[in-house]
């Protein structure tokens, strides 16, 4: 029996599952938007702007659900400033501490990028903000927001690994798995958003669909590596959670969109379902495990 089985569950359930899902999409969307901005053509820019809006919305939702999930939500700022001294609170070796700062900085740079995009479109009463989307400043903001976005997409898996809970601490592959899943769900969400706003036939949308298929292959490989790395612990997945992982995450969320990529919209929806189920399985399969010890059979 793994030593992780003697630990207690932190009761991270639906709010955290939602955060892992939405935060991953936000981080990935901003990276994709910046790729479209830096390498794309003028006709790609509507979808790039949608990526920044999606990132900003995701960052806001992430901050909100994380605060709601605290037992004492009004003390959320204790993670940013030491409540006794007012000095900044930061621990480089504690993923949750690094994550709080990463999410805040991601939100800040994404806000700037989204403001620039909105000003470009003439949606803001301050047209001069369009400088945030232009030239070296615009590129710098986009690149920084993307770097924090990639961090946001992957650190959640590292946070789970830096614990002592079953499944989470029994593998080092959760971070990279969540990162690939964030990239694939972000491309899917952005594609759906583009379709909804009349940009579904853009060249950038086709590129998103193709990018998604390639990331799905990486995600499948990382998922296999993750399950293999669990070793004996993988036995806890035998049963309902394993079925959900196999049919829901692998079957619906990865293989179906790979084998039948058309129509794009259906494939994208399935990718989103798979990404959500992946986080659900990883968090909830670990939750009930608590070995009180003490086999009742006398040897």
């Amino acid at each position, binding site marked *: 029996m793994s030593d992780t089985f003697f630990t*207690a569950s932190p009761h991270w359930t639906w709010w955290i599952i939602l955060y892992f899902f939405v935060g991953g999409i936000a981080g990935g969307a901003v990276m994709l938007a910046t790729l479209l901005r830096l390498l794309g053509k003028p006709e790609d820019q509507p979808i790039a702007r949608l990526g920044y809006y999606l990132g900003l919305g995701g960052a806001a939702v992430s901050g909100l659900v994380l605060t709601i999930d605290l037992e004492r939500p009004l003390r959320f700022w204790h993670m940013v400033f030491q409540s006794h001294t007012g000095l900044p609170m930061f621990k480089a070796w504690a993923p949750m501490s690094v994550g709080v700062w990463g999410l805040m900085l991601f939100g800040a740079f994404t806000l700037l990028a989204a403001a620039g995009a909105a000003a470009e479109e003439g949606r803001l009463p301050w047209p001069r903000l369009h400088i945030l989307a232009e030239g070296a400043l615009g590129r710098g903001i986009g690149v920084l927001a993307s770097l924090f976005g*990639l961090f946001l997409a992957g650190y959640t898996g590292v946070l789970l690994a830096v614990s*002592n809970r079953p499944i989470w601490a029994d593998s080092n592959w959760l971070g990279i798995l969540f990162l690939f899943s964030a990239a694939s769900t972000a491309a899917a969400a952005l594609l759906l958003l583009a379709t909804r706003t009349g940009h579904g036939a853009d060249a950038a949308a086709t590129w998103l669909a193709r990018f998604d298929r*390639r990331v799905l292959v990486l995600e499948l490989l990382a998922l296999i590596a993750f399950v293999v790395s669990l070793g004996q612990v993988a036995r806890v997945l035998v049963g309902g959670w394993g079925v959900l992982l196999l049919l829901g995450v692998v079957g619906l969320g990865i293989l179906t969109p790979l084998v039948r990529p058309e129509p794009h919209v259906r494939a994208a929806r399935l990718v989103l379902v798979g990404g959500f189920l992946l986080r659900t399985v990883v968090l909830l399969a670990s939750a009930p495990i608590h*070995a009180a*010890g*003490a086999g009742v*059979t*006398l040897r």
Partner: protein
Amino acid sequence: MPEPMGFYTDTTVCIGCKACEVACKEWNQLPAANGGRRELSGDSYDNTRRLDGIHWRHVKFVEQFSEDRSQERWLMMSDVCKHCVRAACLEVCPTGAIIRTEFDTVVIQADVCNGCRMCIAACPFGVIDINHASGTAQKCTLCYDRLQAGMVPACAQACPTQSIQFGPIRELKERAQRRVKQLHVLGEPRARLYGADESMLGGLNAFYLIADEPEVYGLPRDPQLPTRNLFKSATLSTVGAALVALLGVVSFRKRRMDQRV
């Protein structure tokens, strides 16, 4: 600075009276479970079942029977926070709520904790949980308030068999080692100390004398710090991030070339 203080719990003399549990609850004003409604475990004489936010001491009952139930063995162990010298909870706490005191014990400051529950996932022994009365993560403080007043922790004072002994760690270890030798002579070869030396998380300042394998008592054999996974996990994720970015750039290039053709 006072010297490191802690508990030495000799499980071989525990009689399962649960006086320590009651004394702990009284002194620390911990609320009743289930709002005071009685809830029986149904498969054990122990109805507390585990340490959590409102149970900082828990007398575990290890009730073992042979297949035909003609033979039985009862082990009892008063479980508590191990006050690890290298503490997992303290390592990962993002608010700085968890501190090491002048007595080398580990305490969660209830006015700082915001209930993120990272420490619950990190503790290798499953000691910590939320106390819903305060909305914060809670566990044994080794009666920090009593120690500051020069008193003995409530559980140790209440223990009628001296299964729970409180004192300077150095003295407790000497006493525990003498007791192990005595038990070996008396024909209990499986008697051993758990967490008394520095190989386990730098040493447990609440260590145990147990009479069987650690797993029998629900204790991990080789508890580890959460950060053991940090470097590998973070490195793999960074490689993944680079791959995703590279994939984006390469697929973009490919698109451009396709368009040119």
